[in-house]
């Protein structure tokens, strides 16, 4: 267990600035994420959402300001961090089972063959597979699984190391509704049980709206942080985008009207889902 020390934010950015040449992605970003908090990171393409992930992973240096993960500088391969990437079809011919993929999340960064810790490893992997309901397909080649099945394995792979921070980079992309709900539900359950902080990059807030504590909305160098009901308003988004935007709430869903296509949230097909909630 690498639980954050009491009172220490799981993730802390202060005065953070990221720029490429004279292009500023964001500046003066102050954000403390508490253990167990679920933060959605929203914004149009190119607003620096993925770059923020890279900063937290230690793959990208800030231009100014500081970043801390559990009170420490972000190092390469911070063991406290679990990472869930976008669903991308894995090579169907690759000789790896779901069980192996999850096992790599547990100790794939360690040198050696790991023969000593075999039993412990097997146990942890089995538990992680069970938690995401992937046990029955864990011995099939990953390349032959559906996108939703692969993404459940991704969740198990990220959670098996018992991270105190979970970074999710568009993990629901290209999943159908049932799997979107399953995957986000698994992430939510984990942060409630173990107190992991979750940073969830998405261009579509509706599938995770009921889970989100705060939103970080990035647009063109500007940003707002706050609970969804305060950030996802016509007034705030109009200010952020610098143009007239209407935020419409339909049956508990948020729809954004009056922006050009790349920042328009295509959530119309989620209407039925949200009725049940």
């Amino acid at each position, binding site marked *: 267990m690498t639980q954050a020390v009491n009172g220490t934010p799981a993730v802390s950015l202060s005065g953070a600035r990221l720029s490429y040449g004279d292009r500023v992605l964001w500046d003066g970003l102050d954000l403390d994420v508490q253990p167990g908090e679920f933060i959605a990171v929203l914004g149009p393409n190119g607003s620096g959402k993925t770059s923020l992930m890279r900063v937290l992973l230690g793959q990208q240096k800030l231009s100014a300001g500081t970043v801390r993960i559990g009170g420490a500088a972000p190092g390469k391969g911070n063991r406290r961090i679990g990472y869930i990437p976008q669903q991308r079809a894995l090579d169907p011919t*690759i*000789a*790896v089972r779901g069980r192996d993929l999850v096992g790599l*999340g547990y100790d*794939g*960064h360690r*040198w050696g063959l790991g023969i000593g810790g075999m039993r412990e490893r097997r146990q942890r992997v089995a538990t992680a597979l069970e938690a995401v309901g992937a046990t029955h397909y864990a011995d099939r080649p990953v390349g032959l699984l559906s996108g939703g099945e692969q993404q459940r394995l991704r969740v198990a792979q990220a959670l098996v190391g018992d991270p105190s921070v979970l970074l999710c980079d568009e993990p629901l992309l290209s999943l159908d509704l049932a799997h979107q709900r399953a995957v986000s539900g698994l992430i939510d359950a984990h942060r409630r049980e173990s107190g992991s902080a979750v940073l969830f990059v998405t261009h579509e807030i509706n599938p995770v709206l009921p889970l989100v504590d705060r939103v970080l909305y990035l647009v063109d160098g500007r940003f707002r942080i706050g609970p969804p009901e305060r950030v996802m308003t016509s007034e705030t988004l109009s200010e952020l985008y610098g143009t007239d935007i209407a935020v419409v709430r339909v049956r508990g869903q948020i729809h954004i009207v009056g922006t050009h296509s790349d920042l328009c949230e295509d959530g119309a097909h989620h209407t039925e889902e949200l009725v049940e909630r």
Partner: protein
Amino acid sequence: MDKLFDFELTGQLLGLPFVLTALVVAAVLGLLAGVLGPLIVSRNMAFSVHGTAELALTGGAAALLLGWDIGNGALAGAIVAALVLGLLSRRSSDYDSVIGVVLAFGLGLGVLMLWLYKGRSSNKFGLLTGQIVGQDFASVALLSGCAIVVIGLLAALYRPLLFASVDPEVAKARGVPVTALAVVFAVMVGAATALGVRTVGSLLVLSLMVTPAAAACRITASPLKATLLAVLFAEVSAVGGIILSLAPGTPVSAFVTAISFLIYLICWVVSRVRRTRVSPA
């Protein structure tokens, strides 16, 4: 070809010291190729291995021309090639074409140098199709030394290397030095390839480095089982190829490639049958 089934002759030849040496060389090589193979296959490096093998030929030809040891020349050529190819990103779309460009030029140089060489022509031919018999003690020692280093290194790097090979994005996020491992692995493959060039020749080195592993990956998805099967298949191909070639006196590589191809075919059929059975839908 009827000599193929002359078991008496085969038995007699098996007793000869130089044949036994050849078998040891083949066994070591099969082990090396078998353990590296599944990673080569999952990294999509088959063409890069072929490129490395051809450039080992160039290195060998240069050594021949300069009067140096051919084996060391091949080793140097393969490692330089592996470094160059290993530094290329395997994700980039022009990866294959860059290999093609580099290997064609290197091969051209090799042909020129072989033409310039005025010595015995069997030395030239040996680089292409291998020359497993007539390995002296020094080359056996070199091969074994290289094999120990490569296998030791592989054991030390295995988990991160597998992670980086099958899941580079998450591996990188978890702090695995993906790029550095690509270079180290390419050098390991280069060394193994160069040693293979001496045995089965640069034209056919793929039959040990890639075919057994590709066959194994057809029938299992477990990395451990794939490695064990790849070693088994490579051993059967390499050692079996030598034994079969003894009586008819044919080049070893002909039998090595035939056996490994046959194994691949069988595994391919097995995987097809299994897949239609598992998912009738």
